[in-house]
């Protein structure tokens, strides 16, 4: 069986079969990025999702643990299994000083003096727990709700559900990668690859590697070049893999890449931002 057919069958158990059947009946492409209405009227207009794998510990920033303070330097009141370094059972509290801040009185580390001033504007969600104790599994849990690889990241799901209004940039852009799980932190996994997160860097001169047209290639030549890549891809798809969604996504990505050449450089250029934004 060709790989494209295998890939197709592999996806079906995870999809709603009624949706698949209905989509094919009316000829709708399953990997569709057109904007869609959410199921509920949204209150927020914009959401920025920062996943900082390898960032400072919440315990050292805004999640003071009184029990750790109580047992600081003493053996834990329970047995630590699995990752007890050197078989140590000793507890260590955050070494940083915390202060009560704002009207809420939230305890924030003195490492974050600016954050201490705006703490009343922040909602903390402290009810999340996990039974994963290692870096990679914890990261997978955070971005996919599963403690292992192979499932779509939250950004892929959002792109799948809502599509995008911007046709000149990928629906899902990831700044950087997961600390120990790399690009899997923004993978679409078994969702169509068009929902995969595209890596960008916070570098105005080259937000995406080789995004700029080479100096010795004219704009007209590059247009023809991209057109030829697209024509070759379509020919391969027609001749060999008419059902391959991966190939369809790659063709769409190339077409998007051409539009991105201008847009990506524009969004990565911070010169146009106000002073207030730059101070952030």
């Amino acid at each position: 069986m060709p790989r494209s057919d295998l890939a197709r069958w592999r996806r079906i158990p995870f999809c709603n079969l009624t949706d698949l059947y209905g989509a094919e009946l009316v000829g709708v492409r399953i990997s569709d990025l057109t904007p869609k209405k959410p199921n509920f009227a949204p209150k927020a207009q914009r959401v920025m999702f920062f996943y900082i794998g390898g960032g400072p510990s919440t315990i050292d920033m805004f999640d003071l643990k009184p029990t750790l303070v109580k047992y600081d330097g003493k053996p834990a009141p329970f047995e630590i299994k699995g990752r007890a370094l050197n078989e140590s059972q000793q507890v260590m509290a955050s070494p940083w000083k915390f202060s009560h801040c704002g009207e809420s009185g939230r305890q924030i580390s003195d490492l974050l003096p600016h954050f201490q001033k705006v703490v009343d504007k922040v909602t903390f969600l402290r009810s999340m727990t996990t039974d994963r104790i290692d870096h990679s599994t914890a990261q997978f849990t955070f971005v996919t709700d599963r403690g292992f690889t192979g499932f779509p990241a939250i950004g892929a799901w959002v792109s799948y559900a809502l599509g995008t209004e911007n046709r000149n940039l990928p629906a899902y852009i990831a700044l950087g990668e997961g600390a120990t799980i790399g690009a899997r932190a923004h993978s679409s996994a078994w969702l169509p690859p068009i929902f995969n997160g595209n890596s960008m860097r916070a570098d105005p001169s080259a937000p995406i590697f080789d995004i700029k047209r080479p100096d010795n290639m004219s704009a007209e030549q590059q247009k023809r070049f991209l057109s030829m890549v697209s024509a070759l891809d379509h020919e391969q798809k027609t001749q060999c893999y008419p059902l391959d969604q991966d190939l369809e996504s790659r063709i769409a990505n190339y077409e998007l890449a051409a539009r991105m050449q201008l847009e990506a450089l524009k969004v990565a250029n911070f010169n146009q931002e106000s002073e207030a934004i730059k101070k952030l």
Partner: protein
Amino acid sequence: MNSDLIMRTTKAFTAKMLEETNNDREKAVTLAFDQIYNRQPTEKERQIAQNSMSMEANPQEGLRLFVQAMFGANNFLYSY
């Protein structure tokens, strides 16, 4: 697909294809397909190559651009 490396290598590769076919551009296209994709080109692919060569003042540059497109296309980047 915009890197200096791909520009340099496609230039060298195109020169090699032309050298090995005594500057017969049609045969050079066939040889390029053999070397890059390990198959013969379809009629449509031959036509795309011909169009590229006819669009450039220097047909060799048109062939180089087509070769660059071959390296950027799915057929080269992903093995099935």
